[in-house]
């Protein structure tokens, strides 16, 4: 049986057991893009416990915690031949404040990095556009206030 053990990360497959925990509510959920829509995979994710899943059935991108920190710090993270896109919000957005506080970054510094021409950080105007950014820029990461899980996006830690 495949198990979704990961170095430095917890996979999409932990959603079922963790979503019910209160701690989701007082944090942000780092979220990763998935490959092409595969409805049957999504159904499987919902139907089975983690140890029954093959890692091959999870098309979420795989990043490490160091990648998360480095990406929001402005470094380019290579994902095979592609570069990871980082979706982020304006510095005055309270969710952005919470997310950057978790990482220990200044929201204004991150916003400044996002405004550089060569940056892989994409500034989205509101949290409602976050999912669109993550999906359209695959491979990409971003965050939500709550768990968002569908065929194209899922939590990455």
């Amino acid at each position, binding site marked *: 049986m495949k198990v979704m053990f990961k170095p430095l990360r*917890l996979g999409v497959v932990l959603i079922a057991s963790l979503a019910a925990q209160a701690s989701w509510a007082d944090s942000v959920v780092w979220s990763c893009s998935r490959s092409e829509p595969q409805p049957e995979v999504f159904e499987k994710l919902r139907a089975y416990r983690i140890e029954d899943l093959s890692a091959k059935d999870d098309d979420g991108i795989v990043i490490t915690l160091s990648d998360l920190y480095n990406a929001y710090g402005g470094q380019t993270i290579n994902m095979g031949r592609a570069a990871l896109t980082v979706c982020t919000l304006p510095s005055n957005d309270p969710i952005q404040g919470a997310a950057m506080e978790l990482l220990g970054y200044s929201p204004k510094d991150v916003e400044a990095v996002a405004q550089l021409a060569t940056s892989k950080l994409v500034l989205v105007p509101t949290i409602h556009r976050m999912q669109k950014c993550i999906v359209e820029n695959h491979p990409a990461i971003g965050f939500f206030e709550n768990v968002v899980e569908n065929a194209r996006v899922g939590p990455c830690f």
Partner: protein
Amino acid sequence: MVQTALKTATRQARLGWVICLGVCLTLPLNTQARNVQWYFEADTATAAPASMKTEPIEPGQAQVVVAVIDSGVLSDHPALTGKLLPGFDMVSDAQAGVGGRSSNHAPSPKGTSCGQRMVSSSFRTHGTEVASIVAGNGHQEMWGVNPNAMILPIRVFGPCGMTREDLADSIRWAAGLPVAGVPMNRSPAKVINISISGGATECRPALQAAVDEAIKQGAFVVAAAGNNFQRALVEPANCEGVISVGALSADNRIENYSALDPRTTIYTVGGGPALRVSTPWADNKLRVATIELSVLGAEQLVVADKAIGTSFAAPLVSGFLSLWLSHRPNLKPTDWASHVHQFVRSVPKLAKCPDCTPQGLVVPESILKAQR
């Protein structure tokens, strides 16, 4: 004392010019220069609050084997020259030209993915980075906690994930126990480091059995608590008998990303965001042997201050255990509970976990001296 002198000299070199004419004099050109391995610093005046303070401690006579169950280890990295024992690739499925169980413990090739699944290049370097924290040989100041330890590299995952069975087999093999279809390990490990997290929220019997057998064999099993942003431990850190390791910042706070669970055995530095203080340890990252890409995309074997996560806190504890065992080779995992009070200090609790009594690793030199 040669290693200590060498470490001291290299640290002095960072601070400025070192002139050695019978004795070494340091000309302080840059008083803001930082100790790149600040987490070993023992000088009370300058040490980070969360420092392990192992810098002045010489390894003992016994050479200790530390198994690194991970993504594989790059055998040609200069920071690990002379440090690697013959390892094994325990991944049962052949994937992308590796796996299928063989003696080739190298990580997956550059750019490997699992079907459409994209994996960051960090996964290729993870095992090498972990191994260097345990036993780095000093190349470019990449010192392990115990440079005399030997690394037993065991590859257990690649881009397609891993199985609980392969992890259990890896633990057994590391400890010198038989595994069907795999040649016996001729260098059983006294310490088994598992910088992996993400299994079930309760340790499954198959994994617990392997941990129990390894402990019975005399191996200390150390696992990263996990980077799940203050949620409970999952496998393998939640298995009974495992020394689970959470992450602290340099200023002795539990890092936001670290798992938060009363069962966490011990905390030590795991790196994190830079701290807004004017100190040598403000960078708050751990030094590791790794790979970086040149501007042309070629891989370069380098040493860098960049590691963040409980994956890197765990090998600090594994390295410490190997240092301790090098002085007291007859200690058993069951001795941990009666000795741990000697090398811990308190860590501030977080309100989210009122039942937690976090303890940080600190190793007074006198402890090992007294035990020689």
